[in-house]
């Protein structure tokens, strides 16, 4: 079936070059086109290709509603016109044939659904800067704020719980995995040098935001705590602080280590005295020379940390030693582990470049990917937990960018914040949540990542 589809781009060009292509996809049948090869103009861009595919789908199924697609050639996303792309990538064998009009060789183009947020939800307003956000639980969003409070949000911008107790700005929040339990445990880190653990019923229906108090205070850091990360099982949390250390803490409320003395915490303003547990660090990882700005604990035995001393360190939890360091030359603000085999390290810092290292490669000092579309410091980066290719980054230039490793350009730029974006995360696998200096929690939903 040879079809010539007229697209707006090639109306004027009668004798434009054509290239023989075949579309294939891993998508399910309604989105699958017949696997015949067709000749299309070589100056088509992603938009043109997308309309070609939509036309084909409509030809098969008249009720098909057109939707954007993204196209992959040899595992790379097409971002220029097809001809330019082929030239740039050096797929010359096809090009020469294309020039000779020997339409024998067929270029295989894989198409996937385009990844871009479809909808901008109503922002959830805070009283102060939103400094931290966690969307690892699909039921709710946990945010930390500069007004010393943590908040729990349901979908639709409803605040259900307010975590009250810190006397400094909350710098980092983390939802601790608690499978099959009614109560959800969360941990927050604050600039008042403590960490607090909280427990609440996420399913509970409330009309008014419910104030809750922490059940455990973790003291021990000598300076502001900057980041927190929970172990996969949820038994332990680790925290990175301005005192250059990473501390490990237990999360269970009945402390088996005999530190079960419940201390009556005296509040300054003669409030209700509430029994609170105090915890101490079970171990401290020393090695960084400056503020530990970000920690992640993706596997049981390894902690990754990024610091202002320009290094990314990998720690063995059992041994308490760092296994490897990567030096990047810039002060780092954020780190995340993900991607192929959950092994790639993405980190951003005091420059506009998001770097991705592959620690499995020998001699890993050089990043394997560098994304540099931001204009200012990168404050947060997060991998998608399902996809190997997608990650988001938030920057002080007020933008959240969605990246695919298969192209150097951002897939989409979420420009909903007016000032610095301080934190960002995925939520439910299809939404991007971000908080910033404009005191808003923005949710961009409809990101279709299969």
């Amino acid at each position, binding site marked *: 079936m040879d079809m010539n589809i007229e697209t707006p781009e090639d109306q004027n060009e009668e004798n434009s070059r054509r290239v023989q292509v075949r579309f294939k996809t891993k998508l399910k049948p309604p989105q699958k086109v017949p696997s015949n090869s067709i000749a299309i103009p070589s100056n088509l861009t992603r938009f043109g290709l997308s309309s070609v595919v939509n036309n084909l789908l409509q030809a098969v199924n008249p009720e098909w509603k057109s939707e954007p697609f993204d196209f992959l050639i040899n595992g790379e996303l097409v971002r220029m016109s097809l001809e330019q792309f082929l030239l740039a990538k050096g797929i010359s064998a096809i090009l020469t044939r294309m020039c000779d009009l020997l339409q024998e060789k067929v270029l295989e183009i894989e198409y996937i659904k385009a990844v871009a947020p479809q909808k901008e939800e109503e922002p959830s307003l805070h009283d102060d800067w939103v400094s931290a956000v966690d969307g690892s639980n699909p039921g709710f969003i946990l945010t930390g704020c500069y007004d010393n409070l943590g908040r729990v949000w349901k979908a639709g911008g409803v605040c259900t719980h307010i975590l009250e107790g810190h006397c400094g700005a909350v710098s980092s929040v983390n939802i601790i995995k608690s499978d099959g339990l009614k109560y959800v445990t969360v941990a927050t880190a604050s600039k008042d040098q403590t960490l607090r653990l909280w427990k609440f019923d996420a399913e509970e229906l409330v009309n008014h935001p419910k104030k809750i108090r922490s059940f455990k205070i973790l003291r021990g850091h000598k300076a502001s705590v900057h980041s927190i990360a929970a172990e996969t099982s949820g038994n332990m949390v680790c925290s990175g602080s301005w005192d250059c250390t990473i501390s490990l803490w237990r999360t269970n409320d009945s402390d088996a280590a005999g530190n079960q003395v419940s201390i009556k915490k005296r509040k300054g303003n003669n409030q209700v005295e509430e029994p609170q547990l105090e915890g101490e660090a079970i171990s401290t990882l020393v090695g960084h020379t400056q503020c530990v700005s970000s920690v992640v604990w993706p596997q049981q035995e390894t902690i990754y940390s990024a610091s202002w001393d320009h290094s990314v360190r990998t720690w063995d939890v059992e041994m308490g030693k760092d296994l490897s360091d990567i030096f990047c*030359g810039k002060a780092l603000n954020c780190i995340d582990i993900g991607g192929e085999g959950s092994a790639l390290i993405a980190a951003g810092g*005091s420059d506009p470049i998001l770097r991705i290292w592959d620690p499995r490669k020998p001699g890993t000092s050089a990043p394997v990917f560098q994304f540099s579309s931001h204009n200012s410091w990168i404050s947060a980066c997060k991998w998608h937990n399902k996809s190997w290719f997608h990650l988001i980054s938030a920057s*002080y230039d007020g933008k959240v960018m969605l990246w695919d490793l298969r192209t150097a350009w951002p897939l989409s730029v979420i420009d909903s914040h007016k000032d610095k974006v301080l934190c960002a995360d995925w939520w439910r696998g299809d939404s991007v949540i971000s908080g910033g*200096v404009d005191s808003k929690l923005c949710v961009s939903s409809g990101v279709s990542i299969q």
Partner: protein
Amino acid sequence: MRERKKSSAVEVSSVKKKKEKKTKDNNEPREQKEKEESQSIMKQQKNTTSRSKKEKQRKATEDYQSLRESELSGDEVHGTDHDVDNADDHHEEDQTDGSEGHRGVEESDSSEDEVAPRNTIGDVPLEWYKDEKHIGYDISGKKITKKERQDKLASFLANVDDSKSWRKIYDEYNDEEVELTKEEIRLVQRLLKGKAPHTDFDQYADYVDWFKYDDALHPLSNAPEPKRRFIPSKWESKKVVQYVRAIRKGLIKFDEPKEEEPKFYLLWGDDSSAAEKANHLAYIPAPKPKLPGHEESYNPSLEYIPTQEELNSYQLMYEEDRPKFIPRRFTSLRSVPAYENAVKDSFERCMDLYLCPRVRKKRVNIDPETLKPKLPSRKDLKPYPVACYLEYKGHKGAVVSISTEASGQWFASGSTDGTVRIWEVESGRCLRVLEIGEAIQYVAWNPLPELPVLAVSAGQDVLILNTGLGNEEEQRRVKDLLHVETPTAPDDNMASIVSWLQHDKLDGIRLRHFKVAFSPLSIFSCIFVLVLDLGLVEDHLLKNLLLALMFTLDGVFGRMASQGRLPLHVFHPTRSIFFVSTKKNIRVYDLLKQRLIKKLETGLKEVSSIAIHPAGDNLIVGSREGKLCWFDMDLSSKPYRVLKCHPKDITNVAFHRSYPLFASCSDDCTAYVFHGMVYSDLNQNPLIVPLEILRGHTSSNGRGVMDCKFHPRQPWLFTAGADSVIRLYCH
């Protein structure tokens, strides 16, 4: 006597020639003769020059001739009478004549002896004065008016009556009637006859032989030539034989005949080497003109002839760019016209010669690149601050001072709006605003991390304030420290200088300073910090130390106070050494010994800022004229390097605590970052490399960047601008 006669004959003939040609020649004999003439004439006329005399003689002779022609017959007797007289006089005056002649020779120019003529117009044609009322000017510059001329008839009648009238001559030059004496007439008559003018000169006097000898018959010896004069000398021939033998034996060697160097010269070479050849110091070889080519031929080939289009395009060109010569064709050399610019060219050539500089300039053929010091590339000196990513906004007035906390998590800034703000570095959040109420001059954060207190100078006070950061234990300690009991019974010394008060509103201490009217308050803040450094938190110790310091430095500050300037100062990071700037110099004091150690001469107009390297051996000083001096204390009291970088005042300089970086900021709204490596090897001098100019601030009231501080741990630079913004430049 024969020679003498000859000379006089020459004289006579020359005199005759002179009279005929009326020319002047300066032969010596004639001069002598004139001398004689003048002597005789001067007896009657003292005030006539030789010039006028000649003139007169000329006139006289002319008149006389005319007279003679008219009165030849009647006056014949007169003439003969004179002649007879002359003959009589001849012998009597013969001797005197000779002696006089000699005297005349010895005398110099005769005209000088004479009285100057009345008229001073000089040797100009007299016709010029024909129509004037005067004939000229006397010696004092006054006009000499012409005499009334008698009409012809009256003068004729007067001449007829006057028997002497034939002897009168009119001197036109002086406008006078001159009456010649009888002697003069006689002299003239003798000249006319071709005789010697003077009667007492005998033309044909006998020869007098002056040389007398015994054998007067033969003036020379008549003896024949002796034979020996014709025989070759025996001794000479012996000598010749001797030489010949010596030459044969090779004892005497002759110089080798010089090989004639071929006299070539490089026709086509340039003249650069000619200057070296010429031993004339100021010899400047003329540049060689371009040799003529085919196009300058009178009949060049057709390809040299410009087309009409080319000619038109020449018209559009600038005068200078136009070709000087446009080839044309002529059938023969004869038809080539004259060169039209000949006059113009020669004029320009003259102008060139006149205007060209006559100074030899030594042209130095040095590539300017090689003169640059070999500095390492900027890329190798990374990291250093490059770009601004964060701005800290909130102040309402110019930010005057900033100070970072030791860990680099926070920093404080003071502004002219009367507030001190504490900022979080990483997020740009203003954590706290401390309202002081007076314009802040200086802010200093305690370098000890366990006591998060801030020293602020505002107005005439120093405030020591609690920042409110840190955990409870730290806060408790800070509160203890900052608590002041009720003003105790004042210590005698203390009362005169400083009083400690609890701050009314904010959590802190107010140090009120009484003695000096101006505010040397940043000093106190530094002192305070030093005191905290030493761990002296007990009040009396602190006070004592402050006192000691005050008295040590009192002299310096007192004098500077009188100049109305704020002294700048810095403490040595490790030793008890204190640096204070006077207007132009830096004084270095040892605080323990309490005396001056060293004086650093900056050579600047006015020191505006100083900073010390964390190792303590190097000091940078910024000045009001935009110069930056680097002092190496080990080298000398003169600056090791002076960098002229800023076009305006340098407001502050800063060293990085750990990276080899230093920076200066200026009122031109820029901050410069330099690499300043200090080596521990004493033989190696510090390496200074300019790295980056940081821009971004805007000017406000003529002020630009007011302060700059490095982040204590990162290679980042904070700049405080008069535009009320603080910027952070990152690497």
